[in-house]
């Protein structure tokens, strides 16, 4: 197989005596969507935080395309190609929908220190932002203030920010949490579209088994912070390790439904 886009080696973090992520070594390849599953508290979001840099690792390494990014700050990792959408909606609440996306486009284009030009004169940024908004079907709400959006639209915007960033590694943390049945497919279709792009690797933390079944090329299971299983979806769901880890209840039963 070709060299991975993202690799974590013995990645560990301890909070006091508690090992939240325990020696996780895993490689993520291009054009692959990896679902990360496990019960609540298994360390999925913490694992994400270690990769994107919000929490410093106690030990272990994170490499992006063969280069170590362990020493880098969150913003440096973002610019290097790690993009993250958050589990709890995490936006700029008093700015408009368009401003939110345009801020990402602007970061991507490295124009943050442009002091004396009017932001509205950068039509190329506005156009790029509008293209992204069209993809997530938020174009009509572009002038709306984010805090006035519905929960579902905020989730879509969360995904829009990540799409605007267009990173090498897309990290989605329960992207459809709390979305209605008619809205969730929009986000899931977008993620499916992203899979078609070349040289991108997608990581998805998800509880819903039907979502994982349709989208995932591979599943890794975290249990008590450690990697419990890794492989093709059908194999993982059937594997002894997983069955055992969940005391014979079967993966679907153990994961529960939201």
């Amino acid at each position, binding site marked *: 197989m070709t060299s991975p886009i993202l690799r974590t080696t013995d990645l560990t973090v301890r909070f006091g005596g508690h090992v939240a992520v325990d020696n996780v070594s895993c490689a993520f390849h291009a054009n692959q969507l990896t679902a990360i599953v496990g019960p609540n508290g298994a360390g999925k979001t913490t694992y994400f935080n270690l990769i*994107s840099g*919000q929490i410093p690792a106690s030990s272990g390494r994170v490499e992006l395309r063969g280069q170590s990014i362990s020493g880098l*700050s*969150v*913003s*440096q990792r*973002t*610019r290097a190609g790690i993009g*993250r959408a*958050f589990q709890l909606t*995490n*936006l*700029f*609440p*008093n*700015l408009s929908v368009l*401003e939110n996306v*345009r*801020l*990402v486009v*602007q*970061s*991507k284009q490295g*124009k*943050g*220190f*442009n*002091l*004396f*030009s*009017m*932001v*509205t004169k*950068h039509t190329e*940024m506005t156009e790029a932002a509008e293209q992204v908004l069209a993809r997530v079907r938020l174009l009509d709400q572009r002038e709306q203030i984010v805090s006035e959006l519905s929960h579902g639209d905020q989730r879509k915007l969360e995904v829009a*920010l990540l799409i605007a*960033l267009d990173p090498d590694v897309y990290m989605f943390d329960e992207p459809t949490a709390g979305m209605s049945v008619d809205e969730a497919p929009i986000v899931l279709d977008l993620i499916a579209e992203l899979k078609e792009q070349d040289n991108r690797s997608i990581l998805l933390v998800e509880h819903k088994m039907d979502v994982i079944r349709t989208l995932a090329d591979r599943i890794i299971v975290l249990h008590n912070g450690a990697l419990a299983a890794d492989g093709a979806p059908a194999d993982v769901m059937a594997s002894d390790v997983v069955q055992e880890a969940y005391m014979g209840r079967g993966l679907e039963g153990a994961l529960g439904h939201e």
Partner: protein
Amino acid sequence: MINSLLSGDLPRSKLLALLLGAIVICLALAPFLFPGVRTVDTAARICIFIVLVASYDLLLGYGGIVSFAHTMFFGVGAYGVALASTHMGRGFDAIAVGAASGAIIAALLALVIGLFSLRVRAIFFAMITLAVASAVAVLVSQMSGLTGGEDGLTFKLPRELGPAFKFGKETFDGTLFGVKLNGKLLAYYFVFLGALILFLGMLRVVNSPFGRVLQALRENDFRAEAIGYRVVYYRVAATCLSAAVAALAGSLYAVWLRYVGPDTTLSMEIMIDILLMVVIGGMGTMYGAIIGATLFVLAQNYLQNLMGAASGLVEGIPILPELLSADRWLLWLGVLFILSVYFFPTGVVGRLRQQS
């Protein structure tokens, strides 16, 4: 044209636009509309405080950074012009050198303070600025050999900016609409134009890509970092910029007063005034600086007279004249502030924009 002068950031409220227009016209024509030493002095102060308050708004309202050292930067600019004019002799070159070095020193000071404290948490920055500002105020009053100590410095400016300089004798007979054409008039327009350029410059900065990043930091610095902005760099840059503009406002003040002293430029009282002006006008709006500074400076200068007159009117009625006595103007100023913050929590500008 107007759109690009105002950087696309229009008042977005008819009443606000009218109010701002009226204030700007009054300031632009102050020496002709309100001739008199005191009125023109008030107008000049309003111009200078608009710049100072706007530069503070850039930091507080846009960047979400609380600083208590803003008067220090203001003072650095004022002392820059004073020292340059004292040691280089009177001249426009001395003003330019003083203002430029004041702005550069202020920006460097801000850079050092920012790099040390903004890495951690915004509250440390507030505390450190308080400490540094107090230290500098003490230093200035102690180093009397250089700064004139508590007495401050009186210095000479170019003749063209002084009342003794007369012009336009041949064409206008020395007066225009009954106003004497002298250097003080030129000094006023020097201050007015300087303030106008600085204000429009800041309005451009807050509507630039950089300004948007500052707003993003204020809203959610965690996410700003996660979309690739190195938060500390932007905060430090905003602090330096704000400090440099505050120093330039200080330079204008020095040019206007032809005097600098710790009380007029460095005191904690002025710092509190600035805070009040930002809050009254409306944080994070820039236009709030115009409204806030105008209301505040007018109240500071004329509330006492107004109350004296009011107290005279109600003479004979028990208690009221006492309550409205001119000596109680500070009490009423305080009451006005409490009421304005209570009724306009988003400032006058925020309130007017809500209505439209």
